[in-house]
């Protein structure tokens, strides 16, 4: 089938090595610095606060948003993380998940809103999202390392690429789902586009947007192990050590830790989505 030669590999390498890295490294260094500071700040905070207090806060939050059952599960889960001696690793993972989710929401929700309102933006954004979700993770891990070095920062970037699409898509869906007659009524009474967005469309889209945020968090957690491959600390690292030393027990301990955090965050965000 090779009727003609497509030197995509060469082109890409020339582009990345010859132009992208030399010209943009300053910019990426700056971004890298900000994200690193952000991750470190959150991690330090989570580790600094005594586990007991974090546990109490999480249990209360779970109780408020998701009910008694989830609160009990959260309590047991926190005891598990403590008793397998993985509390600091758990907090590191939690920090990376929170930062990636926050970045995903900061970019994803406005893009979702724009694409819901403008069909041109929608047509541009959709294929990009498809690309982000289906391109094998390892493909963009390499340039992520090249641009941001090893550690938590490329992990957050890679997680963002993988986990942001649901935030965009669900925001878009949430806005489009607002009943036409409600939008029409608001316009008929003289709402400006801004008033329409903040008083009608966003409040009515919140449950759907929260479902998107929930998905983003789940995807971010599922990236924990992969992120550790490029040097992110946390439970993923524990699992990775388990794999590389053929220590089944360690792998399971770390893996269960990820599952526990996933379930707690999932139930809390789902409950929050229903409450809002």
């Amino acid at each position: 089938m090779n009727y003609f030669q497509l030197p995509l590999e060469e082109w890409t390498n020339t582009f990345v090595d010859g132009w992208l890295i030399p010209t943009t490294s300053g910019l990426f260094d700056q971004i890298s610095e900000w994200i690193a500071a952000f991750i470190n700040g959150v991690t330090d905070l989570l580790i600094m606060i005594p586990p007991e207090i974090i546990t109490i806060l999480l249990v209360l939050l779970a109780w408020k948003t998701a009910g008694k059952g989830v609160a009990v599960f959260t309590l047991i889960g926190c005891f598990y993380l403590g008793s397998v001696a993985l509390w600091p690793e758990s907090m590191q993972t939690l920090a990376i998940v929170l930062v990636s989710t926050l970045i995903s929401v900061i970019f994803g929700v406005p893009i979702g809103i724009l694409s819901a309102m403008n069909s041109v933006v929608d047509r541009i954004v959709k294929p990009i999202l498809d690309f982000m979700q289906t391109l094998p993770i390892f493909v963009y891990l390499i340039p992520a390392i090249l641009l941001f070095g090893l550690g938590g920062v490329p992990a957050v970037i890679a997680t963002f690429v993988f986990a942001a699409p649901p935030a965009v898509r669900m925001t878009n869906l949430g806005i489009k789902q607002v009943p036409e007659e409600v939008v029409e009524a608001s316009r008929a009474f003289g709402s400006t586009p801004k008033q329409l967005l903040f008083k009608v469309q966003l409040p009515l889209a919140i449950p759907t947007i929260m479902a998107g945020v929930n998905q983003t968090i789940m995807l971010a957690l599922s990236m924990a192990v992969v992120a550790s491959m490029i040097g992110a600390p946390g439970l993923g690292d524990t699992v990775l050590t388990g794999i590389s030393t053929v220590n089944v027990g360690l792998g399971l301990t770390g893996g269960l830790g990820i599952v526990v955090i996933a379930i707690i965050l999932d139930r809390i965000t789902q409950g929050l989505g229903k409450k809002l």
Partner: protein
Amino acid sequence: MKKIEVNKLTKVFGPHPKQGLKLLKDGKKKDEILADTGMTVGVNQASFSVEPGEIFVIMGLSGSGKSTLIRLINRLIEPTDGEVIIDGENITKMDKQSLIETRRKKLGMVFQKFGLLPHRNVLQNVAYGLELQNVSKQEREERAKKTLIDVGLQGYEDSMPSQLSGGMQQRVGLARALTNDPDILLMDEAFSALDPIIRTEMQDELLKLQHRLNKTVLFITHDLDEALKLGDRIAIMKDGQIVQIGTAEQILENPANDYVSQFVKDVDRSKILEASHVMKKPKVLTTDKDGPNMAIRKMEEVGASSIFVVDRDDNFQGLLTIDDAIRSHKEHLPITEMLRDDVHTTAPNTPLDDLIGIAADTKYPIAVVEEGVLCGIISRVSILSGLVLGKEKDNEGATS
């Protein structure tokens, strides 16, 4: 000055509306344009005007373009061509900000599916229009509470829309439109989603409110009975065009074309026609000059067994039957002593509906009396023929 003036307002949906517009102006039909270009004509060069304080009804079946037309008025849909002038201001040429201001101050709208904000309670919904104008919370809630009283919803301030019945939700919709105190109410099939009984109730209430607040109302409906009940004037739409504008009377009696006459064929005429439409000029006996002989002769002439009696000024006196006339003749009694006053009388504007029962009960015609003067009589035959044929044809029948 006219409140609303609409000139050749046109909407073509599709990729090249201007091309569609040109075809329309060349006299092409809606379905020809759809077949040739794939574009849909929503509204085709509609023109009409609405007087201040008038209820103007636009009636048409689904797909006739009536809902598009009302949205062109406040530019929820952008017109392709033509103009809308409200209070002398050209809405179609306004910039965005003035359009928003006009919508806020002058136009209230009520929707078929209510369009209430589901995440806000009744009070916040009703105050929404004022909130958009940045009126202080205290003032807007005060005004909202007042309109809630107007529409009979006091005590429901804190309910959520989903907790209310359809009829009550639409009261909220109406209250929301009234709170801004606009001059004009745009009502898009406002009562069509309601149960028949609730709908009648809401119609009566709208008429009462309109009477009190004197708003100009543009009312869209697919229900002819509703149109006839509410409309001071009615425009009938078909295929995006207005085919006839007139009062209920004019449309019922002189349908502009077959389409309109098909439409009005099934109308319950008993509710539209009034006593004055079917009454006939009676042969009467005048107390001052006529005696029993004259009475008998006149009855013989028309082949009736009774005759109505008036005084010199046409004031209604009573009914003289043939038996009483003969007795008066034989016993030389004045006819004024023989008059029956147990005849039914009615006012000229009484709906036929109310007369059907009376007509069935009495063997004499009903006298139509206005301020004591006998204007006409209604027999059982004229009620029935009025119901079947309408008044005009009935009159023709009487003269020919």
